[in-house]
């Protein structure tokens, strides 16, 4: 695997997928831990963000605890109808991510609503608009959300 990351970038990634200090000068504190300068740390993080090696840097929120609704939904759309349905589904602002997958269940999207009871309403609206069933698959139990990804 050829990664455009040097030893310090790797150390940053492996050390700070969590536990980043919360204080007035957090980059300074973290940089000292890593044995580099604050400016170097900030520049490296910016570089990894620019190269999309990081999706983001900062607090990761627990969406369900913010009071909104969140669910994974799936649909089975015939290929000939896929583009039309895709446009209709994506037009809903509550559809956050949407992925095409190689399966009979070929459309998978995350629905995020401002209140939990809006999930069912939006889901029904999508069914009415598209003419296809939406399979609601909200999380029932969470076993792990990655933190240990080593590079």
């Amino acid at each position, binding site marked *: 695997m050829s990664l455009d990351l040097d030893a310090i970038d790797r150390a940053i990634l492996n050390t700070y997928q969590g536990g980043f200090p919360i204080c007035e000068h957090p980059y300074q504190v973290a940089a000292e831990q890593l044995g580099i300068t604050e400016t170097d740390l900030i520049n490296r993080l910016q570089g990894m963000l620019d190269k999309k090696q990081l999706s983001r840097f900062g607090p*990761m929120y627990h969406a369900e605890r913010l009071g909104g609704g969140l669910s994974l939904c799936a649909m089975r759309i015939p290929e000939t109808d896929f583009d039309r349905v895709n446009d209709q589904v994506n037009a809903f602002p509550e559809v956050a991510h949407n992925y095409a997958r190689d399966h009979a269940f070929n459309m998978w999207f995350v629905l995020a609503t401002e209140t939990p009871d809006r999930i069912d309403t939006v889901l029904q609206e999508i069914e009415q608009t598209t003419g296809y069933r939406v399979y609601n698959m909200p999380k029932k139990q969470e076993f792990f959300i990655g933190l240990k990804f080593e590079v």
Partner: protein
Amino acid sequence: MNESEITTLDDLDRKIIVATQSGLPLVSEPYAVIAKEVESSTDEVIKRVKRMLESGIIRRIGAVPNHYTLGFKGNGMTVWDIPDNKVRQCGEMIGALDFVSHAYERPRHQPEWNYNLFAMVHGKDRTEVEKKVKLIADMLGDNNRGHEILYSSRILKKTGLRLASAK
């Protein structure tokens, strides 16, 4: 930590969430920048962020790696049909593997959809993902009544999470 603590977010908390949901400012004093944006003090913002981390509103603070650009091109959503009374045990086993980033129990929709356990498996290519899935299947033994790997073929939409906006 109890339910009421979890859900007690006031306007300032919400403003801080909105101000940081795309990331922590990459400047020497990021919390001072946020404080200015939400019209509060640096100390108050730091206090709020610490509190949200303790209560679990914030899962963690740090780098979120992009598996794909870091060379893990074979990301598969694996789905498993596990007896309901074994799903916790199996979920915890799968979740502990270092090539799995998320593991959830989700409802079945029988007869079309029999799978109740979802796990994102990461590998440098699909061959590696398939090897890892084989490993999981061996580990689960008879508790695995069927599984599939769903690869994503296209991203159709990707936006940030929507939050109730601060008043």
